[in-house]
């Protein structure tokens, strides 16, 4: 079930560059249900489900396993941890949040004192308190270079919605897992890539695309929202279906792939939204420009409060996306 898969994947530790545990969780879910699984030098997990048509295409679907975090750069005498960002993590969002390290050590993020003269706090104003009373005590728990992430959570909101850290992009990982499980007797070969290091510049997917040489690429990722009191842009709403990306900063979707998504949505009877994003990017940008170029698109899950500890999606959009994807495989 999509919801259970999502819950499993949200629980895994996986900041950018340390996605190993997420890959293991995905492998556990897919073992015995796919034709091959391998990991490349960038840590991308590449899973194949062969098509029935020997002349069929190879379609690369990419969902990134990594999420944003805070890396320890210095341990104060008093035992507090100073950090830098891994990906786009904002101090204002991190403030007062519970975080956790790979070894399970918990901490809380504090911004102190408030930046002089007001204004937004910078990362240099932030530290993590792990309860250590000295540098020596802290060093027994955490080393410089260790990465903290928002502590995993799973908060059902109303009937259809779920808030959690790492929803970007574990919701798409869950979608990809389910698609690989459900795809049956499809003509084209599905190459599912659970990619690494998206949050620092689409780094894993570029290498994966080079290795795979797909005929078509499709990134699965979250997109921003425009349906809260102060946010009206982009024109994407939760619960109104997955969004077909027209463009963002990393890519202008290849028209054929974009249109195949619209067609797949019609065939599946799923309502989709059109998405134009003036910022951000997805693995699609890296796939599209790999080697001699790959026709590529992106299917997005609308997500509120992206890059916070309460990234919120609507499960109806996920279920719709799964139906669209299953149609898309043989339509493109």
């Amino acid at each position, binding site marked *: 079930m999509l919801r259970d898969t999502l819950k499993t994947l949200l629980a895994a530790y996986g900041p950018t*560059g340390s996605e190993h545990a997420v890959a293991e969780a995905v492998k556990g879910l897919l073992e015995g249900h796919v034709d091959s699984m391998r990991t490349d*030098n960038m840590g991308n997990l590449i899973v194949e489900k062969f098509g029935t048509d020997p002349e069929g295409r190879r379609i690369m679907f990419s969902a990134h396993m990594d999420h944003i975090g805070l890396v320890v750069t*210095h341990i*104060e005498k008093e035992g507090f941890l100073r950090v830098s960002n891994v990906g786009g993590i904002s101090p204002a969002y991190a403030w007062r949040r519970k975080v956790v390290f790979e070894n399970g050590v918990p901490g809380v993020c504090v911004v102190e004192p408030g930046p002089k003269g007001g204004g937004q706090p910078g990362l240099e104003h932030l530290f993590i308190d792990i309860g250590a009373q000295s540098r020596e005590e802290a060093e027994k728990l955490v080393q410089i270079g260790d990465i903290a992430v928002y502590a995993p959570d799973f908060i059902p909101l109303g009937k259809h919605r779920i808030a959690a850290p790492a929803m970007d992009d574990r919701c798409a990982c869950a979608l990809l897992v389910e698609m690989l499980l459900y795809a049956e007797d499809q003509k084209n070969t599905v190459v599912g890539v659970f990619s690494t290091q998206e949050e620092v510049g689409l780094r894993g997917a570029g*290498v994966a695309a080079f290795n795979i040489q797909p005929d078509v690429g499709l990134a699965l990722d979250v997109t921003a929202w425009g349906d809260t009191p102060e946010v009206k842009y982009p024109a994407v709403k939760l619960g109104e279906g997955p969004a077909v990306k027209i463009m963002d900063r990393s890519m202008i979707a290849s028209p054929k792939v974009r249109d195949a998504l619209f067609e797949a949505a019609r065939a599946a009877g799923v309502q989709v939204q059109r998405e134009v994003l003036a910022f951000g990017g997805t693995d699609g940008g890296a796939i599209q420009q790999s080697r001699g170029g790959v026709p590529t698109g992106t299917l997005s899950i609308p997500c509120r409060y992206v890059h916070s500890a309460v990234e919120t999606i609507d499960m109806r959009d996920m279920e719709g996306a799964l139906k669209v994807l299953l149609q898309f495989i043989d339509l493109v």
Partner: protein
Amino acid sequence: MELRTLTDAFGPSGYENPVRALIRKAAEKRCDDVSVDRMGNLICRKPGRDRTKPAVAVAAHMDEIGFIITGYTDDGLLRFRPIGGIDPRVVVSKWLSIGEEGLPGVIGAPPIHLQSAEERGQVLGFNKLYIDIGAKDQKEAEGLAPLGSYAVFDTPYMEFGEGFVAAKALDDRIGCFNLLKLLEEEYDSDLICVFVTQEEVGLRGSQTAAFALEAEIAVVLEGTAANDLGDVEERFHVCTPGEGVCVSFMDRASIADRELFRAMLELAKAQGIPAQVKRGITGGNDAASFQRSGRGMRTVVLSVPCRYIHSANNVAKWSDIRAQADLARAFLKSL
């Protein structure tokens, strides 16, 4: 080869020929397969004793920051622009060496007597500075230093204090120096030593070099900013000269392969090689290219802490320089 020979050599980004020629000569004595690719990267392949082991690339960049001549004044002064990241505050009144033949020139600025109070509070940008080569007019200047001529800092190599060395271009001739040392020995794994061009202008040479290599692992030997002195709060220190070679977990251009990062630290500990974790995440280097060109490689960076990096005088400690070679060698032997 002595470190001084390498730091004294002329080799700004895009004009690495003099330093490459020196390295090539030394490399050919230690390796049968030496070649140069179209970006000018020097590639030395040394087959390992065990063909089942993964090939390892070890890289250092040959190029240094410098300047390029972009114009002249009527009275024979040279206008110029930096090649690579140079702070205009560190260049005034420094001697430069222009072109391979080493035409001397000094970076000029109006003396303090002639500056207004306002001017004294400002930093002169590269558009306000000039190089004086003693030419009497534009024509003479053009003849001596044609448009597009390169210049580098002209700083003699010097040892001082307890085991410190000061020179231009320690970033990254230290890496080249140690890479040549690695070529002296035999290993089980195939070793590919890559002497890279154009790192300082955006990791350019390494992109083509990395694309053409068939290695599983890449180790990058670098110099890195220390930021450990003066009023800098301890939490902003990046590394400390004298405390060993730096192993990086990440910088702005790449994140180290976690297993290699840990393996390096464990190896250093086990063999008593001084090593420290690089604490800042600023900067970027060729590891980004090796990690992500073509099929991708697992990468890790070993850096020597350098004070006053990207200036006329980089300062490093010999014990750290030795530690870089020792750890890289120990790693190659551990495979």
